[in-house]
């Protein structure tokens, strides 16, 4: 038994503790995610080894799926070993005698199924059954453990390293290379790109909502929302065929005075042609946030008159200020080092109207290492005595703090100083866009980056600081992260619009947003009060304020199960609220109808109106 789960009293009266449920309140707890879940059955062992009150949950962690995904399942499994399938999903391999080595409950025997979408495991001798349901998209690496001659129980098998903060260990029978087929199938379907296979998203046939799948984000509408085009900004079609910059969308907003020819010249001076384009415009002050990649200054200190003029144009669109801040997201050391590779930063001399500020956000390699350490701290077991210092040593919260502080700084310049800001780092996508490395196997590890995760983490930090300011809840953020990896929806596939258009993502896959939008009640924050925070939120970017997002990073730990399923109650109360509201309307209608009918009756004298009390 693990020794660092919950209370671990040294001396224990014989048989003091058997298994104690985490909460006596409800039998069902919801696991906040829908794509991967694990259900625990009587974790507490009847032995006298410790499962203390706090650490164990003996109730069945019913796999909670969001409504729609449940409905997408073709048919309910008829027998115990059958695996529920999504529309378009098919079984590729099934191994009846596999042992899942759960880091919390120990070895569990069961049936393992590999489909083109997921790994599914269901225990056989446990009641209620333990169920694992892991989309292959979260698999980052599969490894063989032990060989045919390895000794010891469960020494032979495979280990699956996941992107969602956990690893899974399975043990197989040593006879007849029984793991080979499973291993090959996982390798094949977890890394479709490497194996020249389509993503599962292209085979997933479910449709949500009214089929307006991809209309949720309409770039023109989005720009209109910000008031573009207007007297200073226009929408350029210079990138229609991605000839200007292949990683930009086809429509970009640029200063009105800049011609398309200007854009080409500016793009030449920017790394990967990512020239400054509009990201956001302040509705009142017209101060803007523009983003780009680094200028190609290089060791020789090249300059570009066109780029300087263009930056000047950006500043000119904002009449409120005679200055422009250029926020370089990198630490200044990294920016200098980039000069050796032809990059660099805007020099004071060339851009006199601009002030350069470094935001000190580290590069993807540092972030990846930090996340790796965080995973080690959070999974599978947590060191009780050194939890806080371990967290500190990962620097994760520090990185989150710096990112948030950078965002606050930009917001402050735009909001308080009414000054426009140009943001860039090296390529202009690591710290703004992101690379997940979908569907490629471990060779692409070096390019993978947790930047999107950090973005979501920052959003979560803000939801913690401003509980009324966000319409969505934690489960929304976790669902997004789950499907960032799951490859069930096309939304996060590929690196840029050009690739997505080429692969016909819009025609052939489902958008995550239509999946989410058809069940908004699952993701609504009941505390959302638009009237309180109508303006800018300035989160406190202090280490003391940063919290470990245990609901995400530690969610596989059974000790993390919610003590009281608040979000279920929230959801129930929201449903009740709408029900009551409907009932009130209905009754009111009925009442007025009846009143009208009564009044139509001429003869009997009306009795006094019934007391309404």
């Amino acid at each position: 038994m693990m020794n660092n789960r919950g209370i671990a009293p040294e001396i224990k009266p014989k048989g003091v503790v058997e298994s104690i449920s985490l909460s006596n309140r409800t039998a069902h707890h919801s696991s906040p995610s829908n794509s991967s879940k694990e259900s625990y059955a009587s974790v507490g062992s009847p032995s006298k080894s410790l499962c203390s009150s706090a650490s164990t949950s003996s109730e069945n962690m019913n796999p909670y799926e969001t409504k729609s995904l449940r409905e997408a399942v073709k048919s309910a499994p008829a027998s115990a070993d059958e695996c529920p399938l999504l529309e378009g999903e098919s079984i590729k391999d099934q191994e009846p005698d596999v042992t899942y080595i759960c880091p919390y409950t120990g070895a569990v025997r069961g049936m393992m199924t590999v489909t083109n979408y997921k790994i599914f495991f269901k225990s056989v001798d446990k009641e209620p059954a333990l169920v694992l349901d892991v989309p292959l998209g979260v698999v980052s690496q599969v490894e063989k453990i032990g060989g045919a001659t390895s000794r010891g129980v469960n020494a032979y098998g495979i280990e699956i390293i996941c992107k969602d903060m956990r690893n899974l260990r399975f043990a197989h029978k040593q006879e007849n290379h029984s793991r080979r087929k499973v291993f090959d199938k996982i390798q094949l379907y977890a890394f479709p790109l490497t194996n020249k296979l389509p993503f599962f998203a292209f085979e997933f046939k479910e449709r949500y909502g009214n089929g307006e799948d991809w209309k949720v984000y309409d770039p023109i509408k989005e720009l209109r929302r910000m008031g573009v085009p207007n007297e200073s900004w226009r929408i350029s079609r210079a990138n229609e065929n991605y000839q200007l910059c292949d990683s930009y969308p086809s429509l970009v907003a640029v200063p009105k005075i800049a011609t398309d020819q200007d854009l080409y010249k500016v793009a030449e001076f920017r790394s990967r042609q990512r020239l400054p384009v509009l990201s956001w415009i302040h509705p009142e002050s017209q101060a803007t946030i523009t983003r780009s990649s680094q200028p190609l200054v290089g060791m020789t200190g090249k300059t570009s008159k066109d780029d300087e003029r263009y930056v000047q144009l950006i500043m000119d669109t904002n009449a409120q200020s005679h200055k422009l801040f250029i926020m370089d997201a990198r630490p200044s050391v990294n920016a200098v080092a980039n000069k050796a590779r032809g990059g660099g930063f805007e020099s004071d001399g060339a851009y006199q109207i601009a002030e350069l500020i470094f935001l000190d956000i580290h590069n993807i390699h540092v972030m990846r290492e930090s996340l790796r350490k965080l995973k080690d701290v959070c999974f599978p077991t947590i060191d009780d005595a050194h939890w806080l210092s371990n967290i500190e040593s990962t620097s994760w919260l520090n990185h989150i703090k710096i990112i948030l502080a950078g965002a606050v700084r930009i917001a402050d310049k735009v909001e308080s100083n009414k000054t426009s800001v140009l943001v860039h780092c090296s390529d202009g996508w690591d710290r703004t866009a992101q690379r997940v490395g979908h569907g490629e196997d471990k060779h692409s590890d070096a390019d993978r980056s947790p930047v999107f995760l950090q973005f979501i983490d920052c959003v979560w930090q803000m939801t913690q600081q401003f509980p009324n300011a966000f319409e969505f809840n934690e489960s929304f953020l976790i669902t997004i992260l789950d499907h960032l990896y799951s490859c069930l929806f096309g939304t996060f596939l590929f690196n840029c619009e050009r690739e997505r258009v080429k692969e016909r993502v819009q025609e052939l896959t489902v958008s995550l947003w239509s999946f989410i939008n058809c069940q908004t009640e699952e993701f609504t924050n009941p505390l959302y009060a638009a009237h309180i925070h109508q303006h800018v939120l300035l989160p406190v970017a202090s280490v003391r304020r940063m919290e470990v997002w245990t609901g995400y990073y530690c969610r596989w730990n059974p000790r993390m199960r919610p003590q009281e399923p608040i979000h279920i109650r929230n959801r129930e109360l929201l449903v009740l609220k709408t029900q009551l509201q409907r009932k009130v309307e209905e009754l009111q209608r009925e009442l007025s109808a009846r009143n009208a009918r009564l009044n139509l009756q001429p003869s009997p004298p009306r009795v006094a109106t019934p007391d309404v009390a």
Partner: protein
Amino acid sequence: MFDVIENGWQAFSAETEFNRFKECQEDWRISYVNKDYKVCPTYPQAVFVPKSVEDETIIKAATFRQGGRFPVLSYYHKDSKTVLMRSSQPLSGPNGKRCKEDERLVNSVMGMGKRGFIVDTRAQGVAKIAQSKGGGFELEAHYPQWRRIHQPIERRTSFHDSLIKMIEACNDSSSSMDKWLSKLESSNWLTHVKDIITSSCVVAQSMDKERVSVLVHGSEGTDTTLLVSSLSQIILDHDCRTVTGFEALIEREWIQAGHPFRTRCNKSAYAITKQRQESPVFLLFIDCVWQIWQQFPCSFEFSEKFLLTLFQHSYSSQFGTFLCNNERERLHCKVADRTVSLWSFLNRMEILQDFMNPMYEPNPAVIWPSVAPQSLMVWTGLYLRGVIDQTPQDEAWKEIYKIREYDQELRSKVNKLRRQLASLEREAISHGVVSPPVQKAAASSGDGIDNMASPLVNNSL
């Protein structure tokens, strides 16, 4: 001044409190053996003891316990018919002295063949050292039905050091707080919180799951002992999680039980002081309650603000409730005549409504808190309130209150309309406008609303 509706000085008398344990009154009685505070100067006049043990035995047993704090009933757990007792350490000393009367008192709780646990809040080594200095622990040989468990909690002196270190870390305003988490960890405050909740869980578990009675003590029986005995009751008894129940618990387990508030809370909680008697023991209790509160946000009738208020009043107060060290001193200083009780102030509708938890749903179950490190939090609302703006949190609570009110409003509106509809229908029928079958339909729609009143039944997935 305000009108006292209910006099707090009389609100929680021993007699009324004893009535809470109705079910055990066959075996237990109120004893006034301590009416002149001679047997134990720090106990109240009235204590709960086994019926089968006479006062003379108790007087002798008291001489065997430090400060005369003989084992008394602290809580009776109905579900498992087990009792929780507390005392101070036995004075067995290096020679292993014994006391027949103490053994009789302790053993009288046990039926034939039953077993119990003695939870010692000290580590075994600490208890051994205490023994060499005249204190000690119950030797197995003399208490054969009891099994001793050591559930180490640090002594109260280290609580104070930890608090100072933690507050220092919290108030360190230097811009580079990159050592925040390790400073917090090395203050050990959360370790104390963990140890205390752990011990309380073990006690609660023994009583609820193992169905055995428990005796808790540390050394003096006025600090860690009370932490464990009171927190176990929060875990076990839903009544202690209501406003009145919680007040009663503090009155019974802290004020009457003789926690020396005067010496422990002499200076301000964060004061750097050389006095060895100072210690934020009660603050730790409030902190532990808050930890459980934030893990079970729907199971407590009171809000975080209520806990903050109690903490403040335990240190500086215009009320007499937390004055003096024990009942004897309070009587001597005529506290009840010369001051107003905090409970008189709090227990008025206009004050109390600010302290209610809008999310409260009575939950009769035993609640098992988690002591995993990621479950224990720094109490931002208390320790960091000077550093971190609490407005967004306050606004969130206001929003919850609003939702609750709106919900109430809708419910009463539905009921009102339903009544109106029913009487209109009656009227219509009496005039022959509508025929009776319609009423049937209306009645069934009425049932629908009744069902909706319990969302958990109706909408559970």
